[in-house]
């Protein structure tokens, strides 16, 4: 289960997005898929890898099972960057 870190700012910048984490003080350039995941976490409060895969499958038309590895990897990166938090099960 994952949640967005508090206070994360996401702003469009040309063809990409900038995300700032007050938790880590880091700024990252991220792509549209990353924004979709982070915005869903911010809106829903929390989500599982399966929830996020279902969301992406709905938006892209790709099978949810093909997104598992990518979503799990992205969430790990977000946690390290201070953009998301891993919640206890």
């Amino acid at each position, binding site marked *: 289960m994952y949640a967005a870190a508090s206070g994360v*700012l996401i702003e469009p*910048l*040309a063809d*990409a997005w900038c995300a*700032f984490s007050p938790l880590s003080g880091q700024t990252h350039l991220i792509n549209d898929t990353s924004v979709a995941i982070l915005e869903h976490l911010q809106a829903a409060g929390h989500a599982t890898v399966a929830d996020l895969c279902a969301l992406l499958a709905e938006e892209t038309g790709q099978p949810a099972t093909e997104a598992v590895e990518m979503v799990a990897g992205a969430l790990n990166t977000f946690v390290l960057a201070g953009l998301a938090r891993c919640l206890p099960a």
Partner: protein
Amino acid sequence: MSAGRAGETALPIEVSRAPGPPAMASPAPLTADRVAELLTGSGLVLDLGLARVRVRSPLAWPAAAQIATAYRHFGADADAEPGNAAPPWADLHLDLRPGLGLRRWVRPQVRLLADGLTAFEPFPAAQVLPLLEWGANWLIGRRMNDVLLLHAGTLARDGRALLMPALPGSGKSTLTAALVTRGWRLLSDEFGACDPASGLMRPCVKPVALKNASIDVIRRFAPAAELGPSFEGTRKGTVAHLAPPAASVAARHQAAVPALLVIPRWQAGSATTLEPITPESAFTSLAFNAFNYTALGATGFRTVLGLVRRMALWRLVYSDLEDATQRLDALWSQLAADAPAPAPTPLAHDAAVAPHAG
């Protein structure tokens, strides 16, 4: 700034200074004798625009002559005049002291105390000005967290700012000095100070520090440039200081609208290339070249984003200074033709001073 900003205000910028008199419209010339008198008395208060720095020292000479040369167009603040009981307000405090022990007399040294603390190793006593300049820059970089401080040469024309962020050794100061000698208003050769509330660039007018080969480059480029003496054998080699022009000093409380970002890089033997860059690349450059991006947190993020969104974004590679300045002038003219000049933006406490367009 320790005085603090008055608040998140719209234009014009309001800066509170407590207590602080209005700046003098026509300051008395800063002579070596006057500098010596102030250094050894209540202190010499240098109003740089972004900050006021008080310098004190029992070492009147050679400090006075060196400071008077580099800051020739600055006036000593009115509140430092004899007979004025109010102590001069200053944001930052520097003390130049003689070396300790034998180094007071044998190969004499000078020490710098920044806000009462020793921040640097002593310098030879004859190198007072380089020590003072580095110390002041160090202190500004650490303390002025009410603005986003970029490591950048910053100039202005017609109220609009040209911002040149770069790493040391990129030719930033040389290019800044060259443009100043061609009539651009100097905001700073070291600090691009962006006010987060207004998004405007604030001047921090100090002498332009030129190093090594750059000194002769500028002497050839502009023989009439007001360059002070060369200090040889400093920790950064030979250093000389270009005095800020009187017009830049007079406009040191005049903010400018950020208009053009140019990331400069001097490369021996290269042809001049001036090309647009992506917003992502510009964002990375600005954030990387900011002294206090991390310290400002979300404010730093929003301020950098605002700069990237409102400026034209370019990269310059050059070796020929004449060609580079001409190309920048041409680009500037092209951009200016597309946008009307903004209204002057004096700081509120300087409202009594006649506005001076950059």
